[in-house]
């Protein structure tokens, strides 16, 4: 059905055979290892319960829900413009990107479209969120394996990006800048030049991380061939974003669907990797940050003039209907299924967040791995707690 590389097939068989073999070879008594919810490696409060046989995991189950905020219920008592301040907090490292698919879904139902300049700025801020989010991932990766330096580099350079986001939107973490029909404001003076400078710096950061981390022997031996996810398994679990592309699936919602955003006006490469292991996931993300800086550069060069807000009524009522819009967010496919009954607020919003699906594969992928690899695999799958629990 799906073409798998020989390496993928072998590691797939190996991981499937691991728990069958374990109890035969080693007649040891199992133990249960609890990681989290308060643990530095869990990026928040994800708890993992692993049953071990010796050093190998025979069963693992993440336990989410320590940060459940019930956003789907809360959206039902908010008006459409109010929802963005909630959904900002789903993936808090790339919060502008959370607003975009919801706003697009509402615009789709209202049959309005943001003016070209607003689409451009939206796309730039979207990519800046990706750089801020995934850039931090690249630094954080080292910490999971005992390397402290990369995380300082990442925090240093993320600050430049956050300053840009703050300059344009007024908020460093929760911009709440996207409006139905456009954007709250235009860009401030001098912002475009500053962004060009920062993008140059960020490319330097990527080179730095590549030399420091990806070229490191310890890093390679901890990630290469570890936590292999074959392409057909990845699709079945609905993995998205870099996790899917690292399994060799060439799928990027920025390129593969038409949205009223500016991605079709720029030239960028969608990176994939055939291996599907932890290394591949990290490597694809590194390339994505580089591509994002290039996308931002191109968009800055072709910025159209004009208004940033379409004509929308003062009191927004969204016509009856259903709409599904998803975008390629820093963590993967994030989508909103919005049901409107022609009222001020949505009737039902289903939030499809990337990390929920990405982490639901952990019971499968952690089977048969060694204990220290739990941490690297989870780190390479890259999740944000708020994005799992919502």
């Amino acid at each position: 059905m799906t073409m798998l590389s020989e390496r993928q097939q072998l590691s797939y068989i190996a991981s499937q055979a691991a728990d069958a073999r374990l109890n035969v070879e080693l007649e040891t008594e199992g133990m249960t290892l609890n990681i989290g919810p308060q643990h530095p490696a869990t990026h928040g409060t994800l708890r993992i319960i692993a049953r071990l046989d010796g050093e190998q995991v025979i069963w693992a189950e993440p336990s989410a829900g320590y940060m459940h905020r019930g956003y789907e219920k809360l959206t039902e008592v908010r008006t459409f413009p109010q929802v963005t301040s909630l959904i900002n907090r789903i993936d808090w490292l790339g919060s502008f990107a959370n607003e975009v698919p919801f706003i697009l879904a509402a615009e789709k139902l209202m049959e309005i479209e943001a003016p070209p300049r607003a689409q451009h700025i939206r796309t730039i801020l979207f990519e800046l969120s990706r750089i801020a989010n995934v850039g931090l991932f690249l630094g954080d990766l080292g910490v999971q394996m005992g390397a402290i330096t990369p995380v300082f580099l990442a925090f240093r350079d993320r600050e430049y990006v956050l300053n840009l986001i703050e300059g344009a939107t007024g908020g460093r973490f929760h911009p709440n800048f996207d409006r139905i029909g456009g954007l709250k404001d235009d860009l401030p003076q001098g912002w475009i030049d500053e962004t060009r400078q920062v993008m140059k710096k960020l490319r330097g950061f990527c080179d730095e991380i590549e030399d420091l981390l990806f070229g490191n022997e310890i890093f390679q031996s901890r990630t290469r061939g570890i936590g292999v996810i074959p392409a057909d398994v990845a699709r079945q679990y609905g993995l998205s974003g870099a996790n899917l592309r690292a399994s060799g699936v060439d799928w990027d919602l920025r390129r593969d669907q038409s949205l009223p955003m500016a991605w079709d006006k720029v030239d960028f490469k969608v990176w994939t990797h055939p291996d599907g292991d932890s290394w591949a996931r990290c490597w694809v993300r590194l390339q994505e940050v580089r591509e994002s800086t290039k996308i931002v550069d191109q968009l800055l060069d072709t910025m159209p003039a004009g208004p940033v807000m379409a004509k929308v009524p003062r009191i927004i009522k969204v016509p009856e209907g259903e709409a599904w819009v998803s975008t390629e967010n820093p963590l993967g496919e994030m989508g909103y299924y919005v049901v409107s009954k022609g009222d001020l607020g949505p009737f039902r919003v289903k939030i499809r967040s990337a990390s929920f699906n990405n982490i639901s594969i952990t019971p499968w992928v952690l089977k048969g791995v060694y204990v220290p690899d739990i941490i690297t695999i989870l780190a390479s799958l890259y999740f944000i707690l708020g994005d799992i629990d919502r």
Partner: protein
Amino acid sequence: MSESTDTGAEPTALASDTLRESIVDALREAIGDDLLESHLIPNDDLWIRVAVSAWRRTGEALREQGFDYFCFLSAIDWLPSPFGRGEDDPSAEPDEAETESKEMTQGYAGGATRFQMFARVTDLRRHVGVTLKADVDESMVVESWIPVYAGANWHERETHEMFGIGFAGHPDLRNMYLPGDFEGYPMRKDFPLLARMVKPWPGIVDVEPMPVDDDGEEAESS
């Protein structure tokens, strides 16, 4: 029974429309009369409603046709909320003109029951997704999709917890978010949002009359 709204769209829509229509035809061939209704917005999206007894067969048929990317699975409660939207002061009488219709209406592709399953799967090669729906009957049990899409596991757990819909064949329907002994199903429309019930939403401040509107005296005396 494929009904398409606004067929007089621009001619570029044709290529994509034949694609979505062929999906409906292929699925009808696979599951027959269990395909109840479909709704197509040309060049945009497709909704298909199937009989709940054919829920798993639909998943299998679609997966064979290339829809092997599992996006999400959840449910909708179509009951109009008896509590309004919680915007107003809970102690005040609801304003008749402002409250939404109390009649239960289902969305695209129709339906007859209060609870509906809906799920979305995508074909990554043809770049097309489809939203599936199924009416949940009184038994409140639906076949599990885990044998078809392994990723449905957590989504079904969440749906079970939030809507009280059971999944036949699911190995482990533990709660994901709520305590194990939690009573009620929070995402049902008749489950009140308690925070709004006990305390008016702070946003109400915006619509409170200004002090001078109250009785004029207060503003003048100060």
